[in-house]
């Protein structure tokens, strides 16, 4: 579905990462894990063709991403940015409807079926009651869910989320993460794939994802969370002693050494 081969990423002459190779198969959850500033967002932007690759190729459905138009890319990858505030008070439903843009003509307007799709997507995430609310006045967690609903309404086979819980407080993080988990288990049934980045290794465990562990602009390891996320690797990546423990309920959690 999505494949990166020996990718070098960066802005202009500043190289952020190199030698990055990864694949996303249909119906898979891939978690891009690494500390802040390790190049996760730059990698995402390169994968979506928003930023030119410094070297290497990105293939989307077998075709180089550079050969596709923006609308063709948007019909294949839906992007969920970090929750933000737009300058104008759009209704939440209007924001979700923007996900339909790549399915409209250049001069097109979203119609009745687009509205139905958008409302379905909001309903799917349990936020249908927010449709008429001012997006700018929603909480960070609600805004993030609206942006995820927009990605669902885009009906792309691959959804990319950039640190979906980064700017949220503890409760909102848990809420958004559990909605993502529910979405992922549902979405995987119809073959959709989800790629998300996070700096919190616990989330990779919680989503039972395949993990790409990034370190200093390269890939340290990739594989199932339960197999590759161990104390030594996490300690290397985050630059401090970390242990992985199993709770009495069987969940794995990462504990940094606090001295």
């Amino acid at each position, binding site marked *: 579905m999505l494949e990166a081969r020996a990718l070098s990423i960066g802005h202009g002459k500043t190289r952020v990462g190199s030698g990055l190779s990864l694949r996303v198969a249909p119906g898979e959850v891939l978690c891009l894990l690494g500390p802040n500033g390790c190049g996760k967002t730059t990698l995402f932007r390169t994968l979506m063709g928003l930023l030119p690759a410094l070297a290497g190729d990105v293939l989307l459905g077998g075709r180089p991403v550079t050969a596709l138009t*923006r*609308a063709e890319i948007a019909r294949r990858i839906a992007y969920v940015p970090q929750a933000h505030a737009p*300058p*104008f*008070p759009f209704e939440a439903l209007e924001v979700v409807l923007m996900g339909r*843009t*790549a399915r*409209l003509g250049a001069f097109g*307007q979203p119609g009745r079926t687009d509205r139905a799709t958008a409302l379905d997507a909001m309903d799917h995430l349990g936020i249908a009651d927010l449709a008429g609310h001012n997006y700018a006045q929603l909480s960070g967690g609600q805004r993030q869910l609206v942006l995820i609903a927009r990605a669902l309404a885009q009906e792309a086979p691959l959804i990319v989320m950039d640190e979906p819980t980064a700017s949220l407080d503890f409760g909102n993080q848990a809420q958004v993460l559990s909605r993502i988990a529910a979405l992922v288990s549902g979405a995987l049934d119809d073959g959709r794939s989800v790629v998300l980045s996070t700096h919190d290794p616990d989330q990779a465990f919680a989503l039972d994802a395949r993990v790409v562990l990034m370190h200093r602009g390269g890939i340290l390891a990739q594989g199932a969370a339960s197999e590759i996320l161990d104390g030594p690797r996490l300690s290397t990546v985050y630059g401090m002693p970390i242990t992985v423990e199993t709770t009495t309920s069987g969940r794995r959690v990462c504990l940094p050494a606090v001295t």
Partner: protein
Amino acid sequence: MSRPALPLLLALVLVLMAFGAVMVGPFGLSPGEVLRTLVGQGDPQARIVIWNIRLPRVAAALLVGAALAAAGASYQALFRNPLVSPDILGVSAGAGLGAVAGIFLSLPVAAIQASAFVAGMVAVGVVTLVATAVRGADRTLTLVLVGVVIGALAGAATSLLKVLADPYDQLPAITFWLLGSLASVTSADILPALPAVLVGLVPLTLLRWRINVLSMGDEEARALGVEAGHTRFLVIASATLVTASVTALAGVVGWVGLVIPHVARMLVGPGFGRLLPVSALIGAGYLLAVDTLARSIAPVEVPLGILTAVIGAPFFVVLLARGRRGWS
């Protein structure tokens, strides 16, 4: 209010206001006289006043107000900033320089208007070219900053011409033009501006959904499937065409393009499909009211720019104080 009702109501109010504005003036007319003249009867004097003086002026005020407000709404959406006005990219400064140069060279009126129009378009063209060449990190910010620079340059050249101009003949004309006025407008002046404004409004209307998406920011718009660069170029070109056409007709009229889109956004929200027509309707009514005031409150004509600033500035402060509704 139901969705289509508001624009219809505004259009109705506009027709009534236009009718009222035709009656007002040194040669006062009753509603009956106006009606009789409009259907081809009435006395010859009323006919001349209405057809040659009042109607062109009313039509020009409607056109200029609608165009400035529509262009302002477009620029605000495009630059994701509610404090942006149509002259952000230097169109007014360029048109001002063009007109002042025309007056300085004692060109005929039509040539002054053409010079203002061309210089306004050229100014924005130079701004976009320079901004593309600079390749700053943030394209929008680069555009705005280059707009400020080119605007300042054009302003300096305008000031130089004012210093050199004949203080008794040319300087008053220059000052009046830079503050905006419809005092000497005729049907012949409106005819070239009208089609240009309509041509500019067509792409803005067709792109109304994509303009919404663009106001989420360039990168997000691209991720949603919009070729942001092309769309932005088309919107800038259209809004500039609209602004330059009416600036050539009326001079530099400030504040309308800044304030009116706010009022419209408070009424119908930021969705551009509704914001554009409602902004244009309110802008038309507002400038008609201001222009009617300008020609009737004092024995001499008051420049439009003075009135729009005197009314617009405190109004804008009230808008800000009321919790920025329609803003965030």
